[in-house]
């Protein structure tokens, strides 16, 4: 398994491939591979709207970090 950390100032639900998978600022365990990361909306108060990443070669202590900026 691989590990993702979504940085965002507020507590929000994280969408991975359009499915709710955990929250911002926690380490989310996911299957290795290509994923589209976003935040549950509305409100659309974040940028970018979504990020496409290849999740691989991570560990619980070195997760892949994806940052969303609050608008």
């Amino acid at each position, binding site marked *: 398994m691989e590990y993702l950390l979504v940085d965002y100032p507020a507590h929000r639900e994280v969408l991975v491939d359009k499915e*709710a998978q955990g929250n911002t600022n926690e*380490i989310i365990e996911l299957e*290795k591979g290509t994923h589209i990361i976003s935040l549950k909306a509305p409100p659309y108060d974040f940028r970018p709207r979504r990020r496409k990443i290849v999740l691989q070669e991570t560990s619980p202590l070195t997760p892949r970090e994806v940052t969303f900026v609050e608008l």
Partner: protein
Amino acid sequence: MLNFNIKILSIAVMSLALLAGCAHYHQNQPLHGASCPAGYDYTELAEAPPGGEETFVVLTFSGGGTRAAALAYGVLAGLRETKISGGKTILDEVDVISTVSGGSFTGAYYTLFGDRIFSEFREKFLYSDIQGELLRRVANPVNLWRLASPFFSRIDLAAELYDESIFNGRTYGTLTPGNTRPFLIINATNLYNGARFEFTGKQFCYLGSDIRSFPVARAVAASSAFPILLSPLSLVNYPYPAEKKITAQDKLALKDYTNNKRRYYAALNNTVYANDREHPYVHLMDGGLADNLGLRAIYDLYVREDIRAAINQGRIKKMLVIVVNAKTAKKETFDRDESPPGLETAAFKTATVSMDNYTFESAEVFAQLFKERIAAQQSRDGCQQLLDRHSMDGYQIPPLAGGNLKLYLVELAFDNFTDAAERDYFNNLPTSFKLSREEVDRLIAAGGQLLKRHPEFKKFIKENKN
């Protein structure tokens, strides 16, 4: 007089020919405007009462004819006798049952009829000579003519028998209202690509089909269509908008050939149905050809589907997976002879070797997933402890989504018996749908014993009693 006899004979032959021509397998129905999946999908069941999934229990029942069905029944009985906190039994907590072949009879019966299984199932199925009854039906002249139809075969006759004598005509539609647990996943194998095919609303969505009118007995028949002895069971793959047949996840996973072949091939197998012109029909055989444990379905749920989401959303706190494996290790003698085994032995081995070969591997792959999660929790917590001890800035490592899970994997197999005589007895039972009452009773008792003696199960009980 001769003319009259010829006329009678002609009418009889024409009637029977007509009967044969009319005989057709029960077709799955297309989706008519319903959203996809139209029913019997795990996500519908996910709306459990608050805390309903906190202790998440999964059962997998392997193939192995009546031997597997009886062993699984024994495990269900054992779970019913075992109480945990809140006065509940572990059986009350079962969320998902994934079944293959012989195990599908037990899993389907329990899901359809609940506790009635304990008063009905022995006489209705375990003690009965199902294969003898099937042979009698095959030999019936009316059925012989029906079997002459290219659209009706032995598996359809078997499905009719199971429907009438075991499952009372129940369809998946009867499982949908109320969304009661456990969620049943009956597994078969798609002959075209050798992929696992599950009887769920999600899988039927790929066929553009509505599972609600589909008889559970036909799913069980497909799951237990043992190669050569029974014919494949056919389904129609209906035209349906491609954007609904290929999910967003599948589209992404199709890019992952180099990154993650398991994910890529799972998506490839899902999307084969999108080409309904090239694949207008699906022919299914015994689920054991793809996975004889029923564990691959749970692997997919855990790694990328609904169990993964439930863990990451913090709905699951403890997970107990009980794998009931009725695999045998019959002593063979053919390698004492210089001349090779005959056609019958070779055919039987060809049909079963692939089923048995990877059961051990499937269980190991799943065990590794649990170990990986525990290791992730330990390394995160260990690192945090070191920081707390040696760092002054109070930095907190982000928590793992879902928190610290407690995971228990219980593998039940005849090889778990430490007594050699007991082990040999069970390992030499045949794979058939006819066992003696004594054999069935011993298998039921074995299911309960294997369960209650298993160290991981004992640990689960200890940690979940008041």
